[in-house]
């Protein structure tokens, strides 16, 4: 095993000294397993994933390029106490963001209070069509993916809030299934919180946000279709929830209601879990050339004839330009202080921030405010001089399009790579579900940057996934403490050889 780089906090080894308590039993197990065996397990997983068809399409690649997201067999663990903190923080954040969305499309108190600037109303993600529209339970972001990163034992940051159509939860579920299949013994040893009920919680929430008066709501999942990069996930979730997976052509609007075309004739649809962006939902209102949407859908929605999850117009709240105000929102709407912190962020629309950022580009990460998926961003420390200069020109031409953040020392987690087991940077996306209540299933999508030194974990940029083990209690078992010494000795041997 290579020695953990000291400047990064490692989920297993901390700073290279003692193995962290929750990982000790695992570490001892790992020391006994030959790397070859792990490689074989990974190969087995790949075969299974491919057979099931857990693939994604990469935009811009040849038609039919179905790729697997690399799966790493070494889990990322989160202690019970860490999870209590993280989940509470994520729930708090999403509650505030939902209140913000209601406010921004109604009385706009937060603007009147001078906390969020009036200019937010000219944000491209702000949907004037939503002004005054009442959504059931005042829930806008029914599914939110809160991206978290860690920089030390105690420091977590929220990197971004994904409130539009966050994806990745199928990996949380499938990675778990795979790990239970590959390493059943570890599950006997570790009190790992189950995640398999996620689809059930999601379905209950979706049913709970049907319009009033609907007693047995019909819920469907609206997908752009088989050529979308996340189609596997759409199909998977629809199947898990036992609901129809529909495309725009399957739905139509009549008499202020949405129907799907079935072999039994038209059937009324009450709740649409849509995995299509706002822009493509309704060609009569948004992009007129969209073939993915349903003509007239928005009019029915605005009149309360159908529920959309997530609501239209949530993008204004997860925009990177809005991100900086979230801690203030939490105080404003909930009267609480934020449990999770934001990454310190420079807003390049501000002159002082812009000047500082342009002077320090090699140290900073610069992001486009509406970008996603790791496209359109500059990672200063790993970028070439030329890349930095090119990006500088883009920034100067439209500063308000960008924000900048210090390069975070993202934590690493041992990962099986070509050279053996080595530390690689990880992040975490728990999924917060809002309906009558707000909750998080204990787990999430752990993404890992497989390239050495890389801080970009997106699957479109060569990132992989790991199973995330949230522990139900922090004391693993008695045997752990007793053999702690032995484990430490073993570690030292490994490190010095």
């Amino acid at each position, binding site marked *: 095993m290579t020695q953990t780089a000291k400047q990064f906090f490692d989920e297993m080894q901390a700073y290279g000294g003692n193995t962290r308590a929750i990982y000790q039993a695992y570490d001892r197990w790992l020391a006994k397993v030959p790397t070859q065996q792990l490689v074989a397990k990974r190969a087995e997983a790949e075969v299974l994933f491919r057979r*099931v068809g857990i693939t994604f399409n990469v935009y811009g690649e040849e038609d039919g390029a179905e790729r697997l997201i690399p799966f790493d067999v070494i889990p990322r663990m989160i202690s019970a106490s860490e999870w209590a903190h993280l989940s509470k923080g994520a729930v708090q954040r999403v509650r505030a963001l939902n209140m913000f969305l209601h406010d921004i499309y109604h009385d706009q108190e937060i603007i009147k209070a001078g906390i969020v600037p009036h200019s937010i109303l000219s944000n491209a993600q702000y949907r004037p069509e939503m002004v005054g529209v009442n959504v059931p339970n005042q829930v806008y972001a029914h599914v939110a993916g809160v991206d978290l990163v860690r920089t030390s034992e105690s420091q977590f940051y929220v990197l971004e809030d994904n409130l539009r159509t966050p994806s990745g939860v199928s990996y949380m579920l499938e990675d778990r299934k795979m790990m239970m299949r590959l390493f059943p013994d570890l599950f006997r040893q570790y009190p790992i919180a189950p995640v398999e009920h996620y689809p059930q919680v999601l379905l209950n929430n979706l049913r709970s946000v049907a319009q009033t008066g609907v007693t047995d709501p019909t819920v469907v999942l609206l997908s752009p279709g088989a050529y979308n990069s996340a189609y596997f996930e759409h*199909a998977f979730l629809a199947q898990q929830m036992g609901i*129809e997976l529909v495309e725009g*052509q399957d739905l*139509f609007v009549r008499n202020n209601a949405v129907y799907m*075309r079935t*072999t039994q004739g038209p059937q009324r649809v009450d709740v649409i879990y849509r995995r299509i962006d706002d822009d493509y939902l309704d060609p009569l209102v948004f992009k007129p050339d969209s073939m993915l949407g349903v003509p007239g859908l928005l009019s029915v929605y605005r009149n309360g004839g159908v529920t959309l999850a997530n609501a239209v117009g949530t993008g204004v709240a997860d925009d990177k330009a809005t991100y900086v105000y979230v801690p203030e929102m939490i105080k404003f709407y909930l009267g609480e202080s934020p449990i999770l912190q934001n990454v310190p962020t420079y807003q390049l629309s501000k002159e002082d921030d812009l000047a500082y950022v342009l002077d320090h580009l090699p140290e900073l990460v610069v992001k486009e405010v509406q970008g996603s998926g790791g496209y359109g961003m500059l990672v200063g420390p790993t970028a070439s001089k030329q890349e930095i200069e090119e990006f500088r020109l883009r920034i100067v031409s439209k500063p308000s399009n960008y924000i900048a953040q210090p390069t975070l020392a993202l934590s690493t987690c041992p990962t099986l790579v070509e050279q053996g087991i080595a530390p690689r940077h990880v992040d975490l996306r728990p999924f917060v579900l809002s309906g009558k209540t707000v909750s998080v299933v204990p787990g999430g999508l752990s993404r890992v940057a497989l390239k050495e030194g890389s801080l970009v974990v997106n699957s479109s940029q060569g990132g992989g996934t790991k199973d995330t083990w949230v522990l139900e209690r922090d004391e693993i078992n008695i045997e752990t403490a007793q053999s702690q010494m032995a484990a430490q000795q073993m570690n030292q041997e490994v490190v010095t050889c």
Partner: protein
Amino acid sequence: MLSRTADNLYWMARYIERAENVARVLDVTYHMSLLPSDSSNEADLWNAVLEIAGIRDIYDRTYKEINATNVILHLVMDSENPSSIYSSLRSARENARAVRVAMTTETWENMNTLWLEFGQYIKQDLTQSGLGEFCEWVKSRSHLFRGVCFGTMLRDDAFSFVRLGTFMERADNTARLLDVKYDFLMSQEEASAGAVDYYEWSAVLRSVSAFQAYQKVYSDAIDPLKVSELLVLRHDMPRSLHACYDEIMPIIEQVAGSRQTEARRLAGELHARLHYGKMLDIFKFGLRDFLDEFITANHTLGKEIQRSFLSATV
């Protein structure tokens, strides 16, 4: 269930069945062509294959001469020919891919494997001795397909539409086969010797796996009337028109539920004709005319199924 999903399942099954039927006719014709005969006969033999598939005009656009090599190439590999085995299997898999969530994992994996294995055959020369093995392979994949659906799918609408596709296509194919072959054989009845006749009719039976059934049911010399009866009216012969409609009618009743649709009426009418019909009457009426009418009515039923259940019109 969603009309689009039902449509994909129905066509997936139809295309598989179509590929199987093309393989059956090719296989038997190839064996027939090995019998000693003059060359004009060979052209007639292979022309019948094109007539059964109903693709004579498409064929004529590409090929000048009707011979074994051309017809085999056209019906196995030609992507321009919508009825070729290549086109059918590709369409079947594309339909499957679009609705893989609506089918069981085994069904999907079976469809996927079929397509991957087919890739191996594409590289081989199938115009000669390899054809027999290839046709066997197509048949066995089709058997597997039906088996995996039957053995693993929930008995819901999805299963019904898969079965419906299989039997609608099969009814069409059996009717066409008999139509073309009967016509062809009767037209040269005077000229042909008894032995050739025997081989011709037994080839028809073999192409629908009915040779042994014939022997068992009639234990008699092969006779056009009995062959026709077996393929049209016998309910216990799995590729007969009657057997197909024994499957089709209850499926349509079930998927229609309480709705009174034209599809339901028409299926009932066709079923009644086969269920209560007498072969002698059909012969008096003219088998050819009977089959032509049947093929048209079956086609109309296909359109009604499309309209009522699959095409999502409001």
